[in-house]
């Protein structure tokens, strides 16, 4: 089942917006996840904890995150799934657009097993 963890560059309001739209959605902003203990942590640490707890990371970071996961994939380490948001089609400031896209995606794929998935949200 899809549990969305919004990386720090995504407005925490997106989590609130998703909850308002769909009461059953499981979503957390990094600032609220695990009591905010992972804010300021390296991405590998966040991904490791997300994998352990089966959360799927939503991020605009296509620099640090893919490079981290490439090594994990080669070593056959599992991750909790990642959704890469394309900033050209869904700019960070367009939070309503991101809420709609994630909500739509959740309706279609929310029941999927997300371990090791990588999705380009364009």
């Amino acid at each position, binding site marked *: 089942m899809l549990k969305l963890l919004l990386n720090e560059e995504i407005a925490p309001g997106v989590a609130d917006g998703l909850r308002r739209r769909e009461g059953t959605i499981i979503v957390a902003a990094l600032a609220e996840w695990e009591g905010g203990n992972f804010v300021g942590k*390296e991405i590998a640490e966040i991904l490791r904890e997300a994998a352990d707890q089966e959360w799927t990371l939503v991020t605009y970071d296509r620099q640090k995150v*893919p490079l981290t996961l490439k090594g994990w*994939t080669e070593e056959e380490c599992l991750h909790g799934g990642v959704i890469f948001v394309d900033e050209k089609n869904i700019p960070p*400031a367009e939070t309503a657009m991101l809420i709609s896209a994630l909500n739509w995606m959740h309706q279609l794929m929310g029941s999927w097993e997300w371990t090791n998935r990588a999705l380009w949200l364009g």
Partner: protein
Amino acid sequence: MTKTASSMVISMRLPTASAKRLRRLANRYGWTPSDASARLVEEGLRRSEFAFIDFRDTPAGRQACIQASSLAVWEVIQIVRSYKGDVAAAAKHLGWAQVKVQAAVHYAEAFLSEINEAIADNQATDLVALKQLLPQTVEFLPKKPARS
């Protein structure tokens, strides 16, 4: 961090233990000890000259970051640019004090090419490049929602 074109030689005396640690650090990154010390001095200077700036190892190399945050400066600037330079709006987006976003903007003004390169690098990882790194990647195009 990019190196400046011109340079000058400054000799310095280090305790033996520090010199050994410097050599170990240089070996780890494939730098010369001279390169390593120049980079550390530059980072130290930038830390002392710019509020809220820190440096961190990332899979993409060492990057300027914002203290007490997981975000690199280039990521904050990407958000600021998405708000067309509106620092207050970017600060609200992140739930940060405005001064912290302003600090990232000042750093980016001073080291514009470094920040632009990092943003360009992020943008260059398009769907094709992402599939090469993570072969399991699939595309999802949501139906176009109305713009806010």
